[in-house]
């Protein structure tokens, strides 16, 4: 009995010990497998993430295509110079003289108007595109059957305030156009072939992406660094990034901008010309009534006419001769047989 008991106990002990051994082994194996798995993840992850070389500090070579060509080839190089004090009338007459808006804007066109909205100043100061002029052009575009008209710029002052204070936002709203403010996602790196400055530079491409036509509208203004700010200088507002660096080589950047942008039409507003204190102005004393509206398909010719309003010789405006030399247009605007007219 006693022995039996002892036997049972020992057999009990034995089975208990066996169970314990199994459990211990099983537990150990589980931990072993987990440890192996974790080590595998660490090693695999390290292999996946490993790059031998340090990150290069150079900007990535992301060269995007340039801007589309918006010019209307069948019109050729033309220019109209209309004198008069009423912007809506002079611009309408000038466009008529070039064959009418239908020559440039077709039914279904998606038009972008690049205004000069650089500063948060009222229209009377003349530092920005005049809302009356803008309204007249937008109306013409819609008359010609444009599907949409977008007004855009990347101003120097705070963008929303600029569009508000200049009256441009209101003009666009009244005539059914849409203002597109520069947002970071609208800028893309652009490289102009053969360019020295516009290389991998952020350009306000977003609003132009879906567009079929591009019109540039700018006032005639004094500019101390470049000599004048007119149509070609106005494309500066398509640049993003720390574009102020380009002032170091102002004539080259203006030339390259003129090479990069191929507009349908440019409208240079010399109803008032800012003779001094440009390009900001700030006082009516800075303006001179020159009563001239210039509409052209040749931006170089337009600026060359503008230079006469400012009374500046071409030798003081190297960007005009350089853009002409680069084949953008002609500085000798008389060779285009300008159509001259006057409306009161």
């Amino acid at each position: 009995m006693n022995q039996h008991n002892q036997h049972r106990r020992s057999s009990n002990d034995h089975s208990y010990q066996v169970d314990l051994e199994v459990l211990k082994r099983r537990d150990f194996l589980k931990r072993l497998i987990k440890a192996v798995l974790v080590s595998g993840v660490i090693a695999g992850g390290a292999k996946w993430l490993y790059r031998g070389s340090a990150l290069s500090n150079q900007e990535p070579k992301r060269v995007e295509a340039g801007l589309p060509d918006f010019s209307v080839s069948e019109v050729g190089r033309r220019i109209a110079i209309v004198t008069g004090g009423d912007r809506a009338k002079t611009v309408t007459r000038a466009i008529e003289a070039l064959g009418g808006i239908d020559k440039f804007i077709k039914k279904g066109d998606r038009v972008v108007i690049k205004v000069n909205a650089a500063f948060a100043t009222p229209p009377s100061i003349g530092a920005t595109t005049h809302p009356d002029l803008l309204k007249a052009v937008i109306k013409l575009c819609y008359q010609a059957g444009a599907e949409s008209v977008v007004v855009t710029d990347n101003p120097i002052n705070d963008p929303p305030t600029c569009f508000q204070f200049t009256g441009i936002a209101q003009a666009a709203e009244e005539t059914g156009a849409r203002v597109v403010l520069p947002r970071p996602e609208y800028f893309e790196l652009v490289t102009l072939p053969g360019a020295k400055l516009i290389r991998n530079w952020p350009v306000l491409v977003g609003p132009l992406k879906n567009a079929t036509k591009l019109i540039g509208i700018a006032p005639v203004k004094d500019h101390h660094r470049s000599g004048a700010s007119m149509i070609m200088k106005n494309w500066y507002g398509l640049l993003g990034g720390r574009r102020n660096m380009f002032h170091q080589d102002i004539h080259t950047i203006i030339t390259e901008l003129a090479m990069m942008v191929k507009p349908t039409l440019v409208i240079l507003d010399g109803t008032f010309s800012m003779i001094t204190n440009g390009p900001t102005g700030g006082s009516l004393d800075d303006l001179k009534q020159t009563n001239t509206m210039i509409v052209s398909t040749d931006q170089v010719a337009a600026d060359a006419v503008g230079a006469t309003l400012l009374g500046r010789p071409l030798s003081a405006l190297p960007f005009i001769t350089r853009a002409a030399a680069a084949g953008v247009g002609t500085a000798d605007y008389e060779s285009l047989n300008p159509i001259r007219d006057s409306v009161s």
Partner: protein
Amino acid sequence: MKIVIVRRISQVFFFLLFIWFCFVLVLGDRWYQLRGWPVNWFLELDPLVAIGTVLTSGQLYGGLLWAVVTLVLTVFLGRVFCGWVCPFGTMHQFLGWVFHRNKRAPEKAELNKYRPAQAIKYYILAAMIGAAGTGLVYQITSYLGSRKWGWITIATVIVICVGLLVAYRFRVLPSFLKRRYIMWGLGFAVAVGVLSAIVGRRLWGDGLLLTGILDPIPLVYRSVTLFVLGIGEGLTQMERYYVGAWLIGTFFIAALLLNAIAPRFYCRFICPLGALFGLLVRWTPWRIGKTQARCSQCGLCQKDCEGASDPHGRFRVSECVMCMNCLHVCPRDLIKYGPDRSASGEFNTPKIDRRGFIITLGAGVLSVPALRLTGLTGPNWSPRVIRPPGALAEAEFLKRCIKCGQCMKICPSNIIQPALLEAGVEGIWTPILNFRIGTSGCQLNCVACSNVCPTGALRPLTVEEKLGRGKFASRGPVKLGTASVDHGRCLPWAKDTPCIVCQEVCPVTPKAIYVREVYRELRDGVCHVVQATNTEIVVDGPQLTPGKLGSGDYAVRLLDGPDQRHRMIINNTANVIMISPLDGWDVPPRKNTRVAIELRLQLPYVDPNLCIGCGMCEHECPVSGLRAIRVTAENESREKRHALTF
């Protein structure tokens, strides 16, 4: 409908209204922009703003008249602002519920019982009121101290009090004249006497408004507008930067997380506005109270008591935020809101230590001369403190600025930034301009900040006044400071590189930034003519970079002979320099003539009489790190002592 439901609706309504006001604080005339929304309304309802500015400036400004509504409501109904209106209080109440919702009733009752530390908020209030009242203390004591009869009066009171003490010692006084009355009189007279002797206009003359640091309404405004909407760029579609917003956010989030310790932690222990209300409610005609003293002490009324005001026992009127949670939960319906006092007794005034209150009040008063010893409103004024247009002179400004951040949110250019320590500890979160941040300098035709300021720390300007036009022509434009060119960093001045972006963007007419044209010989820029025509010269010397000199900025000049005029280079190769045929030499330069290649530079200068300190130049300067032209506060209109020119 139960009153608690009504209260919740009220809280949600005012909370959403507040968030809406924060959201529409954007310059513009759309319905979702500033337009005519009364965005300052909560600040105007805040009596701590009103009382603080009245104490410092002696004036109840503009919309702060609304505070009267809050004060009268509080006197009659108790702390309804805390429980029904305050958006910060609503956040605390909600989070308090979130953190403690799964607790059992006895635990909640324990959380919501009165704690002596709730007195801390009254000491915070005392210190702030003290600092605000320093100017007043100065006016009274210096008035007495500067007059012979003042000193005679003080001395007489002291002598009488000492005499009375002696008389008291010999027990010859009537019993109503207690010893502590005499001691109070003596202490007060001595304090006034000491102050009369030591105060001075320079350090004691102006109070400091520090309430805004902890006042819940300015706190919640700046936290939401600058921090919450700042990080919520996807929602607002605005790219804003706010210097030190992390600190504002840390305060805000810490205040919210404190609800994990106890519900409405901030309201109970810290809030100086709640403390102010707590002092005002002692006479409320209608209040919460028990209808009979004895009850089962089940604790249900205490379970959700937001103010920790012990409705089950001796009721603390000053702590009750009128949440009304206790009204309907009493199983025996013993708690009522009405004209009767609580049957189990009341504390009508907050339980604060009078000595502690006087010491903190005194510390607040003393903090002002202590801070002013740094001299920030005197000779040690900081040129980095450029205040927004319309700002009053620094001492007057600090009397009114509540650090609410409204000007910082409305500024379309995002250049108005909360100060850290630039304007001293006392100037934390006050607005200063930072022209590196944002979308432009201070825009000429914008007066948004000065018109949104709720306290008149920024005087409301018209565009006409800001620009110094029309009837303000004789006074000239509002100047924020003056720009200075750093000649060691400026590209044309120091680095032979054309630039003058600053001149271009200067919005003043005539421009405050003007240029002087110079021609600078290039490094190794002198060479000799090898061969020449009227428009082209071949030169010796180091190879030139082809095309580089044709940018329109380079000129060539003969150093020998009569014709030493500059001629613009139109193109070049490695050793040939070309000039325009329109500008050619009459006679080709002779061989071995010395030639200088020169760079035409326009060097910017600032006219201090014209510069308005708008910072357009600093913002646009292409030297993008430490700008080569920077605005400092010299010549600012608000402080004649900082003038540069006559």
